[in-house]
């Protein structure tokens, strides 16, 4: 049934329909709406789940690690500083092979305090072994949450469903919320590959000597790599039930494009509008949307970008000293091709600043007018501003 939902509530509806058994979270703007409504569902008995209140995000993930280890499906949501506080346990979750699913609302990190959209919080956790999906609209948020459980439980690695602060979390859009039976057809009950059992006690995550640690890590790496393939399978099944499909990447008008804009999150929607406009004016432009960031869909990205003339990557994030993080990943994906297009990196929209069609058009023009990137990253729209208040 189509409903008009906030992006936050789209997540909550998916969690409700996924038969999640344990939820734990610590409130943080702009994530709070998600767990607020979930706690309401738990209190009203609309979800047969235990909601664990905690004193910090660190405890929150610790609680879920315990819960998931007993063999049940769990969920949490966080944002920005909250995710940063979870850092230690993000590593733990993946190495402990626990398929926990998290909604991560992209918000800028402090200082200065800023609650608006910025991807640096989730991207700076890229090495923690979590699968990461970046969503474009609320329907995708809903669908990806269900897909995340399916994939995560398949490869026994945790997954983050990432959505832009306010642009998605607080924006109302029509969302098709399916019936429980349909969801059940796509997402079977959770069957854990291992779980703590008081009848057959054992200790999980015990000491591992140098003789085995590397092999354990290799096992994780292989399963993370396998997640690319498995995601295709998950999407196939998803399409069978719901008739919708996203792909780890989406290439829009890229076949003959001379310049391809690489986007993620809500910026993609804006880029679609620009694309339509530029194409009408005869510009050979394409858009590559990256949905799956971990594992990075290297081969698919290469296939789309290898024959174009220039690549312009829009990054709503920054890794100081190395530029935009998507740009780094794109460069890394292309560098071993014998011939590959130059990659132009653009930093834009940090801390919730709007990335308008004009900003993207500026990116396009700048890319078109240079043969080579003049710098590693070009910061878009810097102005004279006053910081003292």
């Amino acid at each position, binding site marked *: 049934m189509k409903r008009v939902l906030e992006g936050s509530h789209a997540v909550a509806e998916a969690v409700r329909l996924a038969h999640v058994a344990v939820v734990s979270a610590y409130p943080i703007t702009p994530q709070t709406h998600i767990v607020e409504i979930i706690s309401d569902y738990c209190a009203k008995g609309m979800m047969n789940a235990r909601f664990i209140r905690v004193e910090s995000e660190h405890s929150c993930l610790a609680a879920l690690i315990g819960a998931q280890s007993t063999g049940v499906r769990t969920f949490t949501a966080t944002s920005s500083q909250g995710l940063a506080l979870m850092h230690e346990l993000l590593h733990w979750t993946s190495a402990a092979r626990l398929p926990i699913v998290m909604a991560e609302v992209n918000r800028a990190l402090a200082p200065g305090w800023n609650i608006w959209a910025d991807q640096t919080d989730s991207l700076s956790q890229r090495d923690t072994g979590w699968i990461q999906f970046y969503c474009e609209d609320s329907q995708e948020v809903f669908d990806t949450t269900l897909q995340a459980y399916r994939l995560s439980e*398949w490869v*026994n690695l945790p997954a983050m469903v990432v959505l832009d602060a306010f642009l998605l979390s607080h924006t109302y859009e029509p969302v098709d919320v399916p019936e429980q039976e349909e969801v059940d057809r796509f997402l*079977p009950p959770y069957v854990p*590959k291992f779980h703590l059992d008081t009848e057959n*006690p*054992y200790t999980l*995550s015990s*000491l*591992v000597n140098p003789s085995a640690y590397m092999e*354990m890590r290799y096992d994780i790496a292989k399963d993370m790599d396998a997640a690319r393939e498995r995601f295709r399978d998950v999407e196939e099944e998803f399409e069978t039930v719901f008739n919708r499909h996203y792909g780890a990447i989406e290439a829009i008008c890229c076949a003959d494009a001379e310049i391809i804009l690489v986007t993620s999150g809500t910026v993609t929607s804006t880029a679609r509008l620009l694309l339509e406009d530029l194409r009408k004016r005869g510009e050979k432009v394409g858009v590559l949307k990256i949905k799956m960031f971990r594992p990075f869909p290297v081969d698919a990205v290469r296939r789309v970008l290898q024959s174009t003339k220039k690549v312009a990557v829009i990054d709503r994030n920054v890794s100081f000293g190395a530029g935009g993080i998507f740009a780094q990943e794109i460069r890394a994906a292309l560098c071993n091709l014998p011939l590959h297009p130059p990659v132009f990196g653009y930093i834009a929209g940090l801390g919730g600043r709007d990335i308008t069609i004009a900003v993207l058009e500026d990116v396009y023009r700048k890319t078109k007018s240079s043969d080579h990137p003049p710098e590693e990253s070009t910061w878009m729209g810097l102005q004279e501003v006053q910081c003292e208040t």
Partner: protein
Amino acid sequence: METAAINTKPLFMSRSHVTTESNKTGTWRYMRPRYQEKTSPCSAACPAGEDIAKIEMLAGQSAFKEAWETILLENPFPGVCGRVCFHPCESECNRKNFDSPIAVHSLERFLSDTSVRNQFQPSFERLSKKPQKIAIVGSGPAGLSAAWFLSMLGYDCDVFESLPKAGGILHWGIPEYRLPSAVLQSEIGRIAERGVRIFTGRPISFESFSELRKKYSAVFLGCGYSRGRSLGIVGETESAIADGLAFLREIRNGGHPSCKGLSVVIGGGNTAIDVARSVIRLGGKAVILYRRRRQDMPAFEEEILMALEEGVELSDLLTPIKIEPYGNQYRLTLQRMKIEGEDRDGRGRIAPDGDKTSEIIVERVFAATGADIAESWYNPPSHGKGWTAFSHCSAFLETGDVPVVYGGDLTNEVKNVTHAVASGKQAAMVLDTFFRQGFDAIESRLMASRVGNGPSLSMEIYMGGRRSARSKQVVPYNEINADYFQFESRVAQPRLLAGERTESFDEIDLRISPFLAMREAGRCFNCGLCNECDNCYHFCPDLSVIRGKNIEDRHIDYDYCKGCGICVVECPRNAMILGEE
């Protein structure tokens, strides 16, 4: 669906099926936590040493009978004390530092009322019968308490009361609206049911006292202070100045003395308030004259406030100096007093304010300035062969003759019901120890039976009950882990309205419901006591808290306890301690 396929690939992860129990982490320990119940400040402040923290714990669990029995172990008068005790327990309640103290007083009354309504019978056993037989002179709170506790310890007791009804000052000295007769008679009935024989209308003279000493193995004298003090002013006669206590007695005996016109009550204690409020109820006007300041009045503040609400007038710094007939009335001359410095206990020291006097025409005057013994031989000697003074009683013990114990108001510095109960209890302990272990054991037995380090004594501790295992350390507020408690308002004592009160002698304080009582009891921190909240169990990182079927079975598994002390810190009520190995 590929559920099966999903589960085919084994995960390569670290897992150990070897028990960690082989690693006896207890060997790392240099600090040792253990369960150690302590003393709650309320129980130490209660003159009767009631186990209040335990009583409220039981009441909060709706174990009303057990809670009531816990009171009876230390005090045979929960119905009386739940109404007229000055509840020092509440002043010492740790919860006062958090929001407001527990309404221990209201809860005690609730438990007593509940026991009457449900006809509870105390289930504790009397100890084996002892050969000695004790005579008790006076059936006031001290005498009946002595009888109650002696009976508990296995002694036969005969109580002699001069008046036709038992109860002493509880019967004749406290108005019905504060303490209904039915409540008192039910408590006395319970004492009699336990085997205490009460002979009413049997005054003991000095001569018959000598007879008692021949027939009984010991005598307890608790005759109280029953005669009102005279004012000692010019023109004072028995007809001009009535004894306030006698007036209260007349009303309790069913009389309706005329109170038409203006009555003056001289005094500042609870008796003065009782007399004035009784006058109002009998249709008269009442003025209380007090020689010191209002804030120096020994009467309970709440009683003073209610008296004022009911229309009693109060004038302080006035003392009568002369009374003379004035037609059918009296003319009372009053001296204005003033404050000159403070006396030792902080009350203003008073002196006549020059020759400032005034006159007042009144219908009658009541003296309520204190009481005295009725017969001079009641007066305990201050020395003599075999004479020993204890905190709440005095006794002739090793005289070769039968022991005589003086108690209640005769020996108590503070003269009120709960201290009288303490006196009867101490007398029972003194006699029991004297008979069974001899004189020399008395001091140490009394010391060991103290609640905390104060003067209050516990019969349960004396008899070696579970309470005797507790530490004497009184739990201060800063040892309560207040993080585990939430602010909750204290139950308000429901009362008749001022207008309703003055129309009859009906009881003013109303009952609280079981629901409110449980909620109020649930506010109690249970300072120093384990209520099996399981915080220790949940927080122990080594799973070393072992819970048993009963609270006594709870213990620490020292094979694995590393002595981190988290259990002790997280115990909300300080029922654990951490000591060096």
